[in-house]
């Protein structure tokens, strides 16, 4: 149905350390990039996402809201307090009785502790702050909790992943499990791992979150996308994070 397979990913991705980008058969999107795009991600000076990381660092210590405090007032040095946090997200949250991710956690803290307006999902500031926080977990293997109270939501996420949807009648698994490494027109399909998010997408000229990417995928298969921060995408985010379990956090990654 789709284009014939070309060389497997590993043969064109050069200079990669296997343990950094692959765990068992789970491969980071990094391995599906061309050399130039890999070089762009590898160099923190060149990596365009670091504009967002720098902005995020400013926001971290900027006083905002009625309470007159900043994130750093309570959490101090993010390099210490936030190390590894992103690797364990998303997770079950009893208050929501659902899945919570980094974006929603930031906004909840803003409302409660800073007494500030929550950021709009996918706004520049929220992307900057998530990029900054995810960056603090770089290199830490992703490990999300799917048992206990999270189990029913994890199941819903899994159930989202396999059915065909949209006018093209495609499911997530058809591209990302069965055909990763093949070409989809001009683009090489990856496994759709989320260890590099939020990422800088060259075709968007901007940062993007997992939910924007989910919505983009849904649009590409001509399915109606869900809203960012919808329960559907939060559950899916948990399932997809588990799919990439053990992959070190790469954020902020660069992708095509």
């Amino acid at each position, binding site marked *: 149905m789709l284009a014939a397979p070309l060389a497997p990913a590993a043969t064109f991705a050069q200079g990669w350390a296997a343990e950094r980008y692959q765990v068992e058969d789970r491969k980071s999107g990094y391995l599906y990039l061309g050399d130039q795009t890999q070089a762009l991600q590898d160099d923190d*000076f*060149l990596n*365009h996402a*670091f*504009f967002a990381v*720098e*902005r995020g660092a400013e926001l971290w210590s900027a006083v905002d809201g009625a309470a007159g405090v900043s994130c750093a007032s309570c959490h101090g040095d993010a390099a210490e307090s936030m190390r590894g946090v992103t690797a364990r997200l998303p997770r079950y949250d009893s208050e929501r009785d659902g899945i919570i991710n980094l974006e929603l956690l930031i906004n909840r803290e803003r409302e409660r502790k800073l007494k500030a307006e929550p950021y709009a999902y996918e706004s*520049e500031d929220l992307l900057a702050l998530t990029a900054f926080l995810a960056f603090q977990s770089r290199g830490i293997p992703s490990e999300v909790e799917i048992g206990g109270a999270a189990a029913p939501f994890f199941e819903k996420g899994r159930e989202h992943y396999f059915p065909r949807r949209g006018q093209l009648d495609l499911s997530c698994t058809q591209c990302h499990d069965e055909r990763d490494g093949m070409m989809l027109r001009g683009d090489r399909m990856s496994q759709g791992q989320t260890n590099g998010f939020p990422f800088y997408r060259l075709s968007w*000229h*901007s940062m993007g979150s997992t939910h924007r990417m989910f919505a983009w995928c849904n649009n590409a298969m001509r399915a109606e996308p869900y809203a960012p921060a919808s329960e559907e995408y939060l559950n899916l985010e948990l399932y997809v994070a588990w799919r990439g379990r053990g992959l070190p956090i790469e954020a902020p990654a660069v992708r095509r």
Partner: protein
Amino acid sequence: MADGITRVAVPETAAKGEIIEIKALASHPMDNGFMFRDNGTRIPRWIIHRFEVDYNDELIFAADWHVAISANPYISFHTIATESGTINFRWFDDNGDIYTESAKITVV
């Protein structure tokens, strides 16, 4: 995108006569003027059209940029470390804004 944010890399120290690499990156949308918004109106051209570098107030590198330079333009070039001092970078964009950045270098 945060406009007009720039970043440069210059070696802090260099031997006299050494060839050094200088890198500069600017965060800029570089709208080429050929794109349309969803509502059909044209996004006006807005690019950085000139980039200049001074080494102790002497122009050592300049480039005229046109449309088709990508967003967040990156440039690197080499020069010879002649004396200690300051390297100044300037990006000129279509709105008349000039973004500046400077870096110190010590030549031993």
